[in-house]
């Protein structure tokens, strides 16, 4: 009995470890210097990792986590405080609401959903930046929603693999 509880605790700890590491890696990838042409193709790492964890563990990765992550992202990339926090909270809230439905989707349906979420995220960030003063007029900005969506199947299978390993 004790052993069983112990092993459950252990696997839980392992999953938390994976969560923390994946968020840390996502943050590092967000600020990793890239050559100019590749800069626009950078996926929105934090957002898709967050979508995955809210989808898989809606009880432990919740709005609070999204808020803190967003705030850290704001400080990390030097945007207006609260900008990323707000949109990540909104995304986390809606995925938390519809996670059961989204889990039943096939992988490519999920990819389409992720694409929509990323586009909404980018529109939001674009509007906030426009309100606070510095706007960027280049179509390349929107490329990262494509790369983010393309990344989703890979990320999904990868993290799924890690999770089953931990269990």
């Amino acid at each position: 009995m004790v052993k069983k509880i112990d092993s459950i605790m252990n696997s839980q700890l392992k999953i938390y470890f994976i969560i923390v590491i994946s968020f840390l890696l996502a943050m590092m990838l967000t600020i990793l210097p890239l050559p100019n042409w590749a800069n626009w193709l950078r996926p929105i790492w934090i957002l898709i990792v967050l979508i995955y964890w809210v989808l898989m563990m809606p009880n432990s990765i919740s709005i609070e986590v999204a808020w803190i992550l967003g705030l850290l992202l704001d400080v990390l990339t030097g945007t207006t405080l609260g900008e990323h926090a707000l949109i990540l909270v909104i995304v986390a809230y809606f995925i938390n609401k519809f996670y059961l439905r989204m889990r039943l989707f096939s992988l490519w349906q999920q990819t389409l959903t992720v694409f929509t979420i990323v586009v909404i995220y980018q529109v939001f960030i674009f509007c906030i930046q426009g309100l606070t003063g510095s706007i960027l007029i280049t179509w390349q900005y929107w490329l990262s929603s494509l790369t983010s969506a393309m990344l989703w199947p890979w990320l999904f299978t990868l993290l799924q693999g890690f999770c089953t390993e931990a269990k």
Partner: protein
Amino acid sequence: MFIFATLAIFLMIADNRLHFSVKIRSALSIIVAPIQYLVNWPVEFIDRIDDYLTSQHKLLEENTQLHNEQLLLQAKIQKFMALEKENAQLRALLSSAAHIDAQVLAAQILAVNLNPFDQQIILDKGKREGVYLGQPVLDAYGVMGQIIDVGPITSRTLLVTSPHSAIPIQDSRSGIRAIAVGEGYSGDIKLIYVTDTMDIKPRDLLVTSGLDLKFPIGYPVGVVNTVEHIPGERFAQIKVTPSAKLNLSRQVLLVWSKKLTRS
């Protein structure tokens, strides 16, 4: 959810309109600083390996080149010293406060990428080294920007090309004063509120005027690229290419200037 959303909106307003969010930022920056250093580390590591592997031939070549350059600079500095003395004498004659030498500290740019909307860089010096808000940042060729956020071990610099940055400048040829504002993504600077009749021409060197009491006087900001007079517009459109090598430098200088009194 609504509590957190409201909190985020409140923070956004506070960050744009009030000033206490500076403290929140610098407190949070200690959490993200390790991530920034971690990302910077492999880049630096590769740089170091590259240094290690440069051939002797190349080093010798560079050495002679540097020797020549030093000789040239030394010759220049002799003239400069004489001029400085003369300048001090003249200032003494005019009984105005002397130009105080500024204290500088070399800082390194952390190789991290920030949001594409704004032109900012992260430096590896912070409050511990005495960096302060609004401090000028230079490189070997000119003004790079100013510090907008000081953390304990890192600090954020707003580059001169950012649309949020404005520097009072002076045309070194005609002495006309104006304000240089960043253009944003294009990587240029523009002069605002310059009327058509003012004497500013292409290839004029623009230096800091020191009227803001932040930037020391006389550091190059940029060279005028084009001057366009549009019929019907009240002000001329003047584009300036920044002197500082904003994309190339890895080392920058932080300047502590004493309050300069103008004669």
